[in-house]
C-alpha cells in the first residue's frame, strides 16, 4: 500500500537550533506508527509541521503521493490530518458537542439538538463512551482526550497524530485509549503516536521511527526490534566519555534525606508517587530521567516552592519545612534553578542579584548598605569569573554569565546541600565545563549535591551515584562505576532491564 503521508528531507531551524534535520517519515493507512525519541529530539516539531503549525525551512510533504503545502491547521484538517496535543485544545466552558463541532459547524446558526445527535452518532460509531452534553471542564483527563479524538474523527481525519497520549493518563485509561486506537486502525486510519516510552511502542505500534537530535536514527518494524535496541538508538551512546568525577570513595553522613514524597498536581495528576532518595556529604547523586516524570515537582519541594501531599525531607537531620524558601536557604540548601532566567531579575544589577537571597545581611537599620553590597559583588565576580561590572543589568549578560551569577549567589556561601536542576541546559561547552567544575568543588568541600538533568552524558560524567526517575518514583539506582547506559535508558523509558 502506498504511504498516505510522506515527509521528505524536512528541515526546521529555530535560531541556532536545528530541530529537524533532513527528516524522512512516512505512514501507511491502517498503521500505528510510533515516533520515538528523547525530549528535544524533534518529534513534536516534525508533527507540528505536518499539522501546519510550523513551516519547514526545506523538505516537502506528500499526501497520497500529491505534494501539499500545509500553512495552517485548517489546511491540515482539510487534508484529513488530526492532531491530539498533549495540552488539549479544548474550551473548558463548552460542552463536548460544542467543542467537537467548533470550526466545522456546518451552518450559520446552531441547532443544539441536531448538533448533539450528530456528535453522538460519530461517537457511537467508534464505540466511544461519552456524554456529548457534558461541560468539558468537568470531565476527567481521559475523557477530555476522548473528546479530542472525537474532534479529529468528526472532521473526517484519515491520519491521527497523538502527542504523548499516555503522559496524562491513568493506567486504566491507557488500556482504553489503546482499544480506541485499534478500532481506528481497523477502519484503515493511520495513527502516529509520539512517545518516549518503550513499553507503549511495543504495546501498540507496528512500525517505529527513532529520532535523535533532530535526525532519524532508525526506522524499523516494531516486531523486528527489542526494547534494548530502541533504547540504544534513542540515547545514542554505547560508551561513556571519560568520567570527570572519578573519586567515588568518600562516604560522609547523609545530608539530604528524602522519604516517600507524594504529590498531586492541580489537575489531580499524581506527579510524585512515593519518591525516596538520599545524598551523602561529598557525593553527587544524578537524577536521570525523561522530562515530566516528576523532576520539576521534586525540585519544587526541595527548594521550598511546593508542599507534598505526604513524605518528609531532612537536611543534616533537621526537617525541611515545606513552602518556605527562606527556611530552605537558612538550612544552607542552595538551588540552581531549572530556568536560569527565572533565577535572576533581569532589570536589577549584577550586584543586587548577587545579594537577593540574603538581603538581611546587607542592610543597616532597614537601609541597603551599598558599600557592603558592592564589596560582596566584587568578591563574587572575582571568585566566579563573571564577565560583568557590578552595576550592569543582569539581562544584558550572556547565558553563561547569568548562570555564573546564580552559581556565585548559591555556592558562594558554603552550602550544605546543592539542588542543581538542569544546570547546563543551553550553555556552550566552555560554560558547561565551568559549571561542572564548580559542582565538583562543592563535592570536594563536602556538600551533598543532587543533580537533576535530562542530559544523560552530564549525569554519567559527574555522579557518584545515579538514580533513575520514572513516573514520580525512583526506578533504579546505580553506582557510577557499574552504570550501564542501556539499563539506565531502559529504566528511563519504563521498560524493565533485561526485558
Amino acid at each position: 500500500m502506498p504511504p498516505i503521508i510522506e515527509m521528505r528531507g524536512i528541515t526546521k531551524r529555530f535560531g541556532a537550533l536545528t530541530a529537524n534535520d533532513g527528516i524522512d517519515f512516512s505512514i501507511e493507512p491502517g498503521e500505528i506508527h510510533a515516533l520515538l525519541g528523547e525530549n528535544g529530539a524533534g518529534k513534536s516539531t516534525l508533527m507540528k509541521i505536518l499539522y501546519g503549525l510550523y513551516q519547514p525551512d526545506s523538505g516537502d510533504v506528500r499526501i497520497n503521493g500529491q505534494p501539499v503545502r500545509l500553512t495552517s491547521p485548517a489546511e491540515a484538517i482539510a487534508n484529513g490530518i488530526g492532531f491530539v496535543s498533549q495540552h488539549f485544545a479544548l474550551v473548558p466552558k463548552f460542552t463536548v458537542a460544542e467543542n467537537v463541532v467548533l470550526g466545522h459547524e456546518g451552518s450559520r446558526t446552531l441547532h443544539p439538538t441536531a448538533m448533539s445527535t450528530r456528535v453522538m452518532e460519530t461517537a457511537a460509531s467508534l464505540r466511544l463512551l461519552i456524554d456529548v452534553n457534558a461541560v468539558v471542564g468537568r470531565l476527567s483527563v481521559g475523557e477530555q482526550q476522548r473528546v479530542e479524538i472525537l474532534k479529529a474523527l468528526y472532521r473526517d481525519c484519515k491520519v491521527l497524530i497523538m502527542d504523548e497520549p499516555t503522559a496524562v493518563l491513568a493506567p486504566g485509561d491507557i488500556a482504553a485509549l489503546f482499544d480506541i486506537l485499534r478500532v481506528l486502525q481497523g477502519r484503515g486510519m493511520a495513527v502516529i503516536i509520539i512517545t518516549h516510552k518503550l513499553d507503549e511502542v511495543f504495546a501498540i505500534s507496528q512500525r517505529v521511527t527513532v529520532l535523535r537530535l533532530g535526525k532519524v536514527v532508525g526506522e524499523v518494524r516494531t516486531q523486528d526490534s527489542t526494547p534494548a535496541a530502541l533504547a540504544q538508538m534513542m540515547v545514542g551512546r554505547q560508551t561513556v566519555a571519560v568520567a570527570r568525577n572519578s573519586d567515588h570513595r568518600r562516604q560522609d553522613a547523609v545530608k539530604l534525606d528524602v522519604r516517600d514524597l507524594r504529590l498531586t498536581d492541580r489537575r489531580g495528576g499524581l506527579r510524585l508517587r512515593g519518591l525516596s532518595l538520599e545524598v551523602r556529604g561529598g557525593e553527587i547523586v544524578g537524577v536521570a530521567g525523561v522530562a515530566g516524570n516528576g523532576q520539576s515537582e521534586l525540585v519544587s519541594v526541595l527548594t521550598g516552592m511546593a508542599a507534598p501531599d505526604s513524605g518528609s525531607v531532612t537536611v543534616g537531620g533537621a526537617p525541611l519545612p515545606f513552602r518556605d524558601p527562606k527556611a530552605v536557604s537558612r538550612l544552607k540548601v542552595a538551588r540552581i534553578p531549572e530556568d536560569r532566567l527565572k533565577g535572576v531579575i533581569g532589570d536589577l544589577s549584577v550586584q543586587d542579584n548577587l545579594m537577593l537571597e540574603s538581603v538581611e545581611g546587607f542592610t543597616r537599620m532597614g537601609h541597603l548598605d551599598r558599600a557592603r553590597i558592592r564589596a560582596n559583588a566584587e568578591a563574587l565576580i572575582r571568585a566566579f569569573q563573571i564577565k560583568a561590572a557590578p552595576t550592569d543589568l543582569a539581562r544584558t549578560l550572556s547565558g553563561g554569565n547569568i548562570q555564573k551569577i546564580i552559581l556565585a549567589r548559591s555556592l558562594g556561601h558554603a552550602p550544605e546541600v546543592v539542588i542543581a536542576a538542569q544546570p547546563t541546559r543551553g550553555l556552550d561547552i566552555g560554560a558547561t565545563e565551568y559549571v561542572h567544575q564548580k559542582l565538583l568543588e562543592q563535592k570536594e568541600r563536602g556538600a551533598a549535591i543532587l543533580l537533576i538533568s535530562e542530559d544523560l552524558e552530564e549525569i554519567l560524567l559527574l555522579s557518584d551515584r545515579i538514580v533513575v526517575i520514572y513516573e514520580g518514583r525512583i526506578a533504579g539506582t546505580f553506582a557510577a562505576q557499574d552504570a550501564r547506559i542501556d539499563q539506565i535508558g531502559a529504566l528511563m523509558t519504563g521498560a524493565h532491564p533485561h526485558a
Partner: protein
Amino acid sequence: MMDSILVLIGAMLRIATPILFGAMGETLIERAGVLNLGIEGTMLLAAFNGFVAAQLTGSLWIGLLAGALTGVLLCLLMGGLSVTLGLNQHVSGLGITLLASGIALFAFRILYGGATTPPALADSFQPLNPFPNTILTPVFEQHWLTYAALLSVPLVTWLLNRTTFGLRLRSVGENPEAADTAGINVYRMRYQALILGGALMGIGGAFLSLAQLGAFAHGIINGRGWVAIAVVIFGNWQPNRVLAGALLFSGVQALQLRLQAAGVALPYELLLALPYVLVIAAIALVGRNISVPAALLKPYRREG
C-alpha cells in the same frame, strides 16, 4: 404613586439606553477576549462626530452612521494595538480613551470656539409615543433607539449562543489555542467582535447627542463608558444579566434624580454617588465571577 413609579421606569429606560449600547458592545468584545477600556473615549468621540455630521448634512441618520463608524474605527485601532501588536490591553484602551477624548475636545474648540451654551441641533430624534395620553405614556414615550437598545439584548444573546459566529467568538475568548487548532482565525474573529461592538458603542454615544440631548457638551458621556464596563462585570458577561445591571444602575440614578428634584434633606453629593456605590456593592455581593472569559486580556500568539 403609580404615576410616579411609571415615570421612574420611563426615566430608567432612557438613562439605561446609552449604557446598554455600550455594555452590549463591550460584552461582545470581552467575550472575544479583549477588554476595551477605550469605550469611554469612543463614546465621547462618537457623540461628537455624530453631532457634527448631523449638523453638517442636516441628516440625523448620517449623524448616527458617523457615530457608529467612529466606534468602529476606534475599535479597529484597539485591535491594531492589542490584537495585531499584542500590546497590553489596559494601556491600549486607556490610551484610546485619552486620544479620542482629546480629539473630541480639541475639534470642539476649533469648530465651536468658546461657546458657553452647548451647540444644539435644530432638529433631533423625537421620542415615539405609542400610547398617547394614557397612564403608560411615561414608560413608552421613548426614542426608537431605546427600543433598539433593549432589543439588542436578545439579539446579542442569540448571536453569542445560537450562531456559529457566536460559538467561534466565544471560543477565541476562552481558549484561542483551541480555536486556532480548530482552524478558526483568532485575529479575524477578534476584529469582527471589535467592529460589531464598536458600532454599538458608537451608537450609544451618538444617542446622547442626537436623541436624548440633541446637543453636544464636554461632559456628555460623563463616565457612562466606565459604567458599561462595570455592568458587564456585574452581568457576568451574560447579556441578560448585563441588562439587569444596566437597569439597576439606571433605576437608582433615576430615583436619585427624583429625590434631588423633590428636595430630600440629604447632601446632593451623596445622592449623586448612590448609583455608583450601589453598583460597586452589587458587584462585591455577586461575588467572584466564575465566567470571566478565560483568555480576556491575553494577546494571542502562536508559539514557535
